[in-house]
């Protein structure tokens, strides 16, 4: 491939300008954002900004609200990704490869994914309403005391987590199901003949074959969870008592409530760096031999 590209391949005139445009756009924007984050631009005193160096980043390290938000982001992302993958995989493995009404089930699985997060958020807010919600009604049927799903600082984050899991586990199921369908069945039979019990077939043969698909789904879900905003905005607005404020949401508050644009962009850059480091680490753990797996 390389030698063909190196020779005069006329198709490069079509794709190279686009690559240049995209590169320039992203590099220029990134540099611009970094540049602003090194100032103290605030919409409250527009026109009087000055260069402050790394002050905004130092301020971040000393900002307990930001640190708490970062921790919440880590917690939410980890829990959401792990639970969604585990649950999705379990559902796929327990369903047969071919079962009745598979097409119907697959269509139904798409429903939560297609629903806009605003609708999902509102629906779950109704479900979680302490007085009239279905969630407490169901709990009351089995004799468990009422829970203040979205009003209690200890519980609210997990309530949002439940909504997120409800919306995105089907996505994991769909992708893993597709991976399972395209995986060859002969190695599974070979393992059975070779003396493996069903759990050993799954553990030693099937799961390693699905690893790639699972890793990709996990990456997608982790990135989405870090960026999660709409569910939080609709369900809790970061409350109660900041207990569901993620870093992404905090950045939004800083920018559009406090109008502290430079600090908000510093937070955004920290979030980006953090995301990249975390995901690259995750990627290298999931794909040990680079590139060719």
């Amino acid at each position: 491939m390389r030698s063909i590209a190196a020779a005069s391949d006329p198709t490069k005139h079509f794709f190279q300008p686009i690559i240049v445009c995209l590169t320039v756009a992203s590099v220029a924007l990134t540099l611009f954002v970094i540049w602003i984050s090194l100032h103290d631009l605030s919409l409250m005193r527009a026109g009087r900004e000055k260069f402050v160096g790394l002050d905004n980043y130092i301020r971040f390290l000393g900002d307990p609200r930001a640190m708490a938000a970062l921790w919440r982001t880590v917690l939410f992302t980890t829990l959401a990704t792990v639970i969604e993958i585990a649950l999705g995989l379990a559902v796929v493995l327990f369903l047969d490869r071919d079962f009745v009404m598979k097409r119907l089930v697959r269509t139904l699985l798409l429903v939560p994914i297609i629903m806009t997060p605003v609708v999902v958020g509102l629906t779950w807010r109704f479900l979680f309403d302490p007085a009239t919600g279905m969630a407490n009604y169901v709990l009351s049927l089995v004799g468990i005391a009422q829970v203040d799903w979205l009003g209690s600082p200890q519980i609210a984050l997990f309530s949002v987590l439940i909504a997120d899991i409800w919306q995105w586990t089907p996505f994991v199921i769909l992708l893993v199901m597709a991976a399972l369908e395209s995986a060859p069945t002969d190695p599974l039979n070979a393992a059975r003949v070779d003396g493996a019990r069903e759990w050993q077939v799954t553990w030693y043969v099937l799961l390693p074959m699905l690893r790639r698909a699972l890793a990709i789904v996990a990456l997608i879900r982790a990135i989405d969870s870090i960026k999660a905003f709409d569910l939080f905005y609709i369900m809790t607005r970061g409350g109660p008592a900041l207990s569901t404020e993620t870093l992404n949401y905090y950045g939004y508050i800083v920018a559009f409530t406090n109008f502290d644009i430079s600090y908000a962009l510093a937070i955004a850059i920290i979030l980006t760096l953090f995301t990249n480091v975390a995901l690259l680490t995750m990627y290298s753990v999931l794909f040990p031999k680079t590139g060719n797996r």
Partner: protein
Amino acid sequence: MAQLSIRSVSKSYGAVSVLDDISVEVEEGSFVVLLGPSGCGKSTLLHAVAGLNPIDSGTIVIGDRNVTNLPARERDVAMVFQSYALYPTMTVAQNIAFPLKMRGLDRRTSDEKVTGVARLLQIEPLMSRLPRELSGGQRQRVAIGRALVRDPRLFLFDEPLSNLDAALRTELRAEIKRLHQSIRRTMVYVTHDQTEALTLADKIVVLKAGRIEQTGTPLSLYDDPDNAFVAGFIGTPRMNFLKATVVDDGKALAAGEAKVDISHLNTRLENGRTVKLGIRPEHLDEKEGVALTLAVDVTERLGSTSYVHGALPSGETVVAERREDQPRFGDTITLRFQPRRARVFDGEGSRIR
């Protein structure tokens, strides 16, 4: 004592019967080939023996154990798949060691056995590779190694050579034959390739549409087929079938211009009955005997011999072997055959002896 007994096994998918009352006895140490066209149920039967496919009725006995209701892992068989079925995420060494690991063998004994098998199959340099880094022939060697390492009671091969190219197929075929001669284990081998069946088997079971057509040694199937299907399926190019009518009070057949003496048959056929006369291409190159006139279409030159394709005056197409000369398109040649070499089949395809 038979190492494997398949007793009146039947299986159907809905209304479609894929195995219909199949019974096969496999002697200890023998090499049995299940042969048939695709869709004849031969792989289904093999999978049933392995325990991967439940059967509707019948019994499968391996050694002295009735394994009909046992899961695959307790049947003590090893299987080689057409798709190789190597574990894609394990190295060659891990692949071969897997059956031992599942049996809880300790690491040292396992390593010894794996090395031994690798040496036998000459795959030692490949041990740390992954399956996708191997060629088709190497993959199938590893799959055979994985089967060998356990020393099972019974080896099952499911079209192991079908995914390989012609040269490798011949090579690996000879290797499987050599392997069987050296370890003398019971092997059941499924194929649609009659050359593989003829070269490998002690006994061939010919299947068609879920039923056994004939069971016998390779030569008996070739020389003495029970029906037109077996006669046509065994041997390349396939046997020629000509329409013929009984004449002379059952003493002869009239096939076009030719008159074929069938007084050696035990069955006396009534005059005027229509039958099929089967003659193999290799029996049409005699100096004397009954003559047929052939208008030549195509000659395939294979070096050691040639095959002539053409049509008789009746319009029936015929393939004949030709060792001496190589006729060309448009030539008219005379084919001769010995009447005793010809086989007679009735309208349903059953052999008339």
